[in-house]
């Protein structure tokens, strides 16, 4: 693992991804202190409402980027930058919750399949297959159309659609761990099943899952923004990147900054997560890691 980090730490794309995500996460966590207008970010109205000179919009509170409002303001006069930072917080939170939920469900199913085998394995694998062949967006749409939009609905709906990938991965790794000697020794010593799963198999199956988790963070954030854009996720006035893009639709021809900045932030966020996952993936793949190592000019042989 240390070897992996030494190579990755010299990869500029990976570094960009990690640094960007880190900065955004810290900014989102401390959103209240970082943004210039925190109350507007959370959705309360701006007082006094800003007046913008000479703008062709019917609503005078929509101001272009200026010194006071770096990204401009939206139709309720709220500062866009603050809204974006708070929106990032919502998006990141939902991403984390979704991936956590999917991992928990996927791990439980995958580990049970691998450990118990037999008919439990067969049944669970069929169920996993069924969920895998379901289109994710439709399942999420239907779930949310039934239980209504909102923060909880979104991450529950998305988590329920994504766990099959984790289950498959967990099952594969757990199967190979199960045959290791230390597991057989634990069984021979009479350790309870629960103990074996939790203390031996689980920690050793986590490694490939982390790559999947980071890739899925990007996809989860994108899916959540899409659902909010359709009005089925987070509803306004709670700030969320998808909601902000949705709100900008009516002002597309007059206030371009409303559409550009939230989407740009969303894109860079998802890009960073994808870069991180992609780089780790490339490193783990023996065919392609040779190319990275060569290009980053490791001339001396690196020992594990």
């Amino acid at each position, binding site marked *: 693992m240390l070897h992996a980090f030494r190579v990755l730490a010299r990869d500029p794309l990976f570094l960009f991804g990690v640094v960007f995500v880190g900065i955004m996460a810290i900014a989102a966590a401390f959103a209240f202190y970082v943004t210039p207008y925190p109350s507007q970010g959370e959705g309360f109205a701006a007082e006094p409402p800003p007046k913008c000179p000479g703008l062709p919009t019917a609503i005078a509170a929509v101001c272009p980027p200026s010194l006071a409002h770096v990204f401009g303001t939206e139709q309720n006069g709220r500062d866009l930058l603050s809204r974006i930072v708070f929106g990032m917080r919502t998006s990141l939170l939902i991403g984390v919750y979704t991936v956590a939920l999917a991992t928990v469900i996927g791990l439980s199913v995958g580990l049970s399949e691998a450990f118990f085998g037999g008919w439990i394995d067969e049944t669970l694998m069929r169920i996993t297959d069924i969920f895998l062949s379901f289109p994710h967006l439709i399942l999420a749409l*239907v779930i949310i159309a039934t239980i209504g939009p909102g923060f909880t609905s979104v991450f529950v709906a998305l988590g329920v659609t994504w766990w099959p990938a984790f289950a498959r991965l967990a099952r594969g790794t757990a199967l190979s761990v199960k045959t290791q000697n230390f597991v057989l020794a634990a069984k021979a010593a009479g350790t309870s099943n629960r103990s074996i799963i939790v203390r031996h198999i689980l920690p050793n199956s986590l490694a490939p899952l982390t790559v999947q988790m980071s890739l899925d963070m990007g996809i989860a954030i994108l899916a959540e923004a899409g659902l909010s*854009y359709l009005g089925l996720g987070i509803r306004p006035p709670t700030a969320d990147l998808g909601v902000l893009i949705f709100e900008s639709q009516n002002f597309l021809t007059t206030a371009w900054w409303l559409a550009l900045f939230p989407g740009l932030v*969303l894109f860079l966020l998802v890009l960073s997560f994808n870069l991180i996952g992609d780089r780790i993936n490339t490193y783990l793949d023996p065919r392609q890691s040779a190319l990275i190592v060569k290009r980053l000019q490791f001339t001396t042989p690196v020992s594990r």
Partner: protein
Amino acid sequence: MNVGAYVIRRALLMAVVVLGTITVTFILSHIIPGSPAVLFAGPQSTPAEIETWTKRLGLDQPLYVQFEVYLRNILTGNFGLSWSFSFDPILPLIEQSLPNTFTLAAISTALAALVGIPLGVEAAKRGGKRVDSILRVFSVSCVAIPQFWLAQLLQLGFSVYLHVLPLSSYGGTLLYTQLHPIHTITGSYLVDALLAGNFAGFGAIAWSLVLPVTALSLYPIGVVTRQTRSAMLGVLSQDYIRTARAYGVPDRQINYRYALRNALPPVIVILALVFAGSIIGVVFIEDVFVLQPGLGHLIAQSTGTGITSSAIGAVDYPLVLALTIIVVIIYTISNFVADMLHIYFDRRLIR
């Protein structure tokens, strides 16, 4: 296990998924708040009227009887009436919208193949060098761009500021088609215009489809580039390629005749999956560009969230559930085709 058994197994899985979806939608249709009887009876109806409607809709029967009726209805194609389209029957609505969406998805899949495969080959050819890195970042970016935002940006750039391409597509050409009706053969505006020899109409519709297709294809291009690149890298490291090089076979021939041909199978499988994904991804595009009639437009309208829907949150439950079933059917058929392609190319995949 031989090929026949595998095919039967996948077909059975397909049937199970579809049946499971129908069951789930049936359960959901009974969980949702509000009873259809109340809706049909109207806002100020007496309990007696609601009672009549309940009997008429068969809602007072035991659950398994209702399910049997539901199943029989669906298998004969009766999906019920849509709430948001003035109680039109649903199946004709969907039938009307499918051809346009299929056209869009097919064009974007073709574009993904035409652009993605050469880019992937280029990236694999110079593995590890600068061009490869740039193409890696490009493909990862394509996958990361939110499609609805990209659609808005394209509208902003090309329609609003450059006045080059139309803002909303069939919305503009819908007017065109109402003025110059296109004889309907397949149901898809683009194909029908071509088949009827109406080149002016074909040009207008194709021009208005440029932006939506671009917005729709960028994600598949990224996926196909990445997949081609990794497949090509795998093939290029093989011994027979090295032998061909040692024999002095020119590089271009190696890349295209030997390597690409062997790298194509997983790419073709991905293309089938990309087609399936495009059918669903079309939701955002058809919403932003107001492409009606279309499957994505129906989906956005039924969940009460499209640009043209009258009330946000006015969910049209029969339509949503019917669309779920239809989309799942399309999706599982595409997955099945992808599976068949997969084993056609590589028998070893059958365990």
